[in-house]
C-alpha cells in the first residue's frame, strides 16, 4: 500500500513570530523555516507502518515555493521514498491545498493519506477535513493511535471528552495529533542518501487547480500584552474571583 504524506514548510516552532510593521502578515524574511511539527509526526507514522511491512511506498508532497523542496528532502531523509513539489509562490488556502491533494491522489492512488491536523502557521485545522469531503473518503482526525488492519484502519482520536476510536474503511485520511509518536531525527547518512531520492516538480496549473484566494486578510496584529496577575489570599478568594470576576465557574 502506498501512503501519501503532505508536508508544509512553516516558520520553525522555536522562532518568535513578529508581525510586519504594515500589518499585512508576519515577517518571513530571514526567518528559520522547518517542516510543520504535525507533519513530522505524519511522516514518522508512515515510516513506522512501512517498517512494520504494512506500507510499501511513502510519497511526500509539499505545496509552496522552491524552498519547500528542502521540507520534502527532510521527509526523504527521515525515510519517505519520493517527493512531489507543487511549486507556487502564491498564498495557498486550505481549500486550494485540498484540491491539489485531490488531484495528486487521482494520479497516485494511495491507500492512506496521513497528514498533520493543522499547520502551526495559520492553525487552520481544515485541510484534512476538506480533502475528506472532496474525495468522499473516511477521515480519522486528531489521531493518537493508528492501527492498520485488512482493508481498514482503526484510529484513536483525541476528542474534548477523552479518546474515541473509529474504524475506517480504506482508503482513508488520518490527521495526526501530538501524542501519536515522537518523530525521529534525520541522520546524516540518510540526509546524504535523500539527495539521490526522486523529487518531481509540478504546478497547480498542470493539476488543473485554481489557487486564487477565497479569503482576504484584513489585518494582522500582535496579541495584546499579558497583564500582570494578582495574588489571592485564600482559596475562597480565588473561587469568588473565578465566579464573580472571571465568570468561568
Amino acid at each position, binding site marked *: 500500500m502506498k501512503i501519501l504524506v503532505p508536508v508544509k514548510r512553516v516558520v520553525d516552532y522555536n522562532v518568535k513570530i513578529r508581525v510586519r510593521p504594515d500589518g499585512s502578515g508576519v515577517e518571513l524574511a530571514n526567518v528559520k523555516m522547518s517542516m510543520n511539527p504535525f507533519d513530522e509526526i505524519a511522516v514518522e507514522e508512515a515510516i513506522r507502518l512501512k517498517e512494520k511491512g504494512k506500507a510499501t511506498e511513502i510519497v511526500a508532497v509539499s505545496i509552496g515555493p522552491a524552498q519547500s523542496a528542502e521540507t520534502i*528532502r527532510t521527509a526523504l531523509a527521515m525515510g519517505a521514498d519520493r517527493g512531489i513539489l507543487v511549486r507556487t509562490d502564491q498564498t495557498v488556502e486550505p481549500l486550494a491545498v485540498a484540491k491539489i491533494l485531490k488531484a495528486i491522489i487521482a494520479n497516485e492512488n494511495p491507500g492512506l493519506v496521513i497528514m498533520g491536523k493543522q499547520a502551526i502557521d495559520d492553525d487552520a485545522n481544515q485541510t484534512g477535513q476538506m480533502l475528506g469531503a472532496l474525495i468522499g473518503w473516511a477521515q480519522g482526525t486528531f489521531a493518537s493511535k493508528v492501527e492498520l488492519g485488512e482493508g481498514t484502519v482503526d484510529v484513536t482520536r483525541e476528542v474534548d471528552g477523552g479518546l474515541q476510536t473509529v474504524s475506517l474503511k480504506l482508503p482513508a485520511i488520518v490527521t495526526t495529533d501530538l501524542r501519536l509518536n515522537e518523530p525521529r*531525527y534525520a541522520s546524516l547518512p540518510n*540526509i546524504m542518501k535523500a539527495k539521490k531520492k526522486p523529487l518531481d516538480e509540478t504546478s497547480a496549473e498542470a493539476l488543473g487547480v485554481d489557487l486564487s484566494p477565497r479569503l482576504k486578510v484584513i489585518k494582522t496584529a500582535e496579541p495584546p500584552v499579558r497583564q500582570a496577575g494578582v495574588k489571592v489570599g485564600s482559596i475562597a478568594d480565588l473561587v469568588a474571583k473565578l465566579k464573580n470576576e472571571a465568570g468561568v465557574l
Partner: protein
Amino acid sequence: MIRDPDTLQAFVSQLRRFVEERLIPREAEVAETDRIPPDIVSEMREMGLFGMSIPEDFGGLGLTMEEEVTVAFEFGRTSPAFRSLVGTNNGIGSQGIVIDGTPEQKAYYLPRLASGEIVGSFALTEPDVGSDAGSLRTNARRVDGGYVINGTKRYITNAPHAGLFTVFARTDPDSKHAGGVSAFLVDGGTPGLKIGKIDKKMGQKGAHTADVIFEDCFVPESALLGGRENVGFKTAMKVLDRGRLHIGAVCVGVAYRLIEESLRYAMDRKQFGQPISEFQLVQAMLADSRTEAYAGKAMVLETARRKDLGENVATDAACCKLFCSEMVGRVADRAVQIHGGAGYIAEYAVERFYRDVRLFRIYEGTSQIQQLVIARNMVKEARA
C-alpha cells in the same frame, strides 16, 4: 563529503535539534552518574556521529574539514563528554588508519569505527612521557609472527570502552627519540592488555580515561599500522592538524553556549532595580566573550577551508587550538562571574562547563606546546 550547502544546513539543523532536545536535557544526569546513558549512545550511532571524518567508501561520511568544524560548532553547545565519546572515532582513533593504514586494516577497522560498533582509543601518553611524546618507553619486541608489547599508557580517553587501541611503542630499542617508534592496532580484549581504574577527573564527567597496561601482550605482524616500522610518530603528527582544528571548533561551540547562558541569566537577574544586563561592566564581559568567540569561529573556519584546499596549515591549526582553548577558558570564567554566586553552584550549567573546558588547554598538545610549534615554524619559515 557533503559539499552542498543545503544538505550541510539540513544536517546542522537536525544536529542542533538533537543537541537541544536530547543532549542538553541529559547533561546534569551524565555529570551526576558519570556515564552517558545507553539510549543516547545508540541515538548518536544512528545519527552517524561516530563516522563523520571516515571516508564514504568505508561507511563514514567523509566530511571535509570545513564541514567537520561546522558540525563541531553545534556539537560543542552541549557537555564535552558527549563529544568525547565520538571524538576518538572521528579523530585520533581513526585518522591514523585513514592516512597510513594498509588496505586490509582500513577494510577491517574503518567500517566498524564509522558505525560506532567499536570505539577507538589513541594510546600515546605514558606516566613519564607527556609533551615529549617522542621519548616514549613502551616497547614492542619483534618475535616470531609478530610483536610483544610491554609498557603503560596513561590518561587514555575511552580506554574502558575501546574495541581498538592505536598504540605507540618503540620498535628500535637503540633509539631514544621519535624515529624509533611504531604504531600498532591492538584489539580490546587482547591477552596481556589491561585497563586500569577509571580516572577521577576535574570535569567532563561521563567521559572516561584510564591507564592501559601491556604485559607481554602479543600482537600479530598485521597489527603494525601501515605495515612499516619506525614511522609511527610520523603518522601521529599527520593527524594533529585535523585534531587541533576539531578541538578549536568544539571550544567555539562551548563558548557560544556559555554566552547564551550568561546573556539569559543577565537579562533575567535583577539588582539595584534593573536587570544586571543593563550594567555596563556586565555588558563589557558579554561583549568581550562574544568578540572572542567570533574571532575563534572565524579563524577555525578560515583555516579549515585552507586545509581543504590542500594548503599546509600546521602553524595556523596550532594557532586555532591555542587561541580557542584559552578563549573558552576566559569565556567560562566570565560566565561564572556574570552568574555571581549562582555560577559557583552546581545547579547552573556554567559551573560544570567552567571545569569541563579546563581540559582543552592541556590535551592534544598543551598551550605551551602550541606556542612552541607556532614560534618554531615562524623561525623556520623566516630562515627558509
